[in-house]
């Protein structure tokens, strides 16, 4: 079962992206959401091209992880869960009950990722929406608290 999981090949959504030094910003024009991936999540995202399996990603992400492939794959799955949660993948992932799950502490201990790779994170936000009001004159004036 574990071998099958490692062959899972995720595919990312085609989104507007901006590469930063250690992060990547993605914008989804269907949901109007922007997403910020840290370096680990961004590395996994880049490899979600339909050509890399989870096992391939683990090797690419943590070179020399052959001695403990399970830990490296857990890191990839942690990133993929973040990407799935943010709606950034095209294909459906296996259910959580089948996925390996290591705590943040276990990942850091087994892979020593704290110095090079961070535990993967993806933060999301809705970008600026429709006008708040046509006119300041139309804004409610009495019920809002005036900042000091």
């Amino acid at each position, binding site marked *: 079962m574990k071998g099958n999981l490692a062959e899972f090949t995720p595919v990312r959504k085609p989104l*507007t992206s*901006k590469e*930063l*030094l*250690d*992060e*990547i*910003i993605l*914008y989804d*024009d269907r949901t*109007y959401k*922007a*997403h*910020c*991936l*840290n370096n680990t999540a961004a590395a996994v995202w880049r490899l979600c091209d339909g050509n890399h399996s989870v096992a391939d990603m683990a090797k690419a992400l943590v070179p020399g992880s052959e001695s403990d492939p399970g830990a490296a794959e857990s890191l990839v799955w942690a990133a993929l869960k973040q990407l799935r949660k943010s709606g950034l993948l095209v294909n459906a992932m296996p259910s959580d009950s089948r996925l390996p799950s290591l705590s943040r502490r276990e990942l850091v201990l087994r892979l020593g990722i704290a110095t090079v790779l961070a535990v993967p994170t993806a*933060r*999301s*936000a*809705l*970008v*600026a929406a429709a*006008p*708040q*009001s*046509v*006119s*300041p*004159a*139309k*804004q409610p*004036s*009495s019920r*809002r*608290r*005036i*900042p*000091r």
Partner: protein
Amino acid sequence: MPVGLTASQDKVCPRLSGKSSLARMEISGRRSIGFMIFDISIQLEANGHGLIEFLISGLPLRWKPASAANVHRSYSVLYSDQREFKTGNIGRFMLLAQHQLLFSTTSLEELYNAFESDLLYFVGQRSREMLFLHAGVVAWEGRAIVIPGRSYSGKTTLVRALLHAGGIYYSDEYAIVDRQGNVHPFPRKLSIRLDAGGLSRIPAAKLGASAGGPPLAVRLVIITRYRAGAQWRPKDLSPGLGMLRLLRNTLSARHCPDLALAILERMVCEATILESERGDADESARHIVTALYSIRMRNRS
């Protein structure tokens, strides 16, 4: 139905005095005008003498006359002097955008506010020349402090406190950012909310501050929101998280995401981004000034 402004109504436009002679020549007495703000073309027509001059001469952004071709947005202002119909003694202004009624009022001030608000929002959403962010901006030692935030987030109050601390006023509503990531002044009067409700527009000079200047690179982005009693406990945000916060306040993010991301990256690449709730504005301003000195020392070493 609507009729032109009467001579007595024309006198209600005190703003007209003191505007540059060039601006007056361009718009004086006209009933229709095409103009550009940045790369956006606007058409404005009005049925009252002096209305166009009144509306355009107050705009806080530079505009230039343009042909009526390829108009991105058209406005009409209709004035009905209800005295004609014996229903009262105050005329009503109707502001239409793209032939749809946007706002109706008996107050010239409210008419202007509605026109300015919609126009700037439209330009901010559509311009590919400049990026508009909902943000206050204060210049400090030749660099910009940008405070993004929606209405009622307390950005004007913090801008005002930073002006008291010695900053130069750039904006309390929009940070206008060029393609190089530099912030331009948006020289509108500060909109101070009154305890009794409504807004009062106060020039920076009245607060003892100077205003405007050249485009500036950004040194500090402050992500904050007022909460009564909150302590200033800033944490550094990465450029990516900073951009995420700024995108919430970027008007054109949905129309031109590529451009917005490119400009925001240039804007934050050398900036420090701090996030904290804030309580008292003056106390927060003191913390911000301290942070600026720390950043300067860090950059030197």
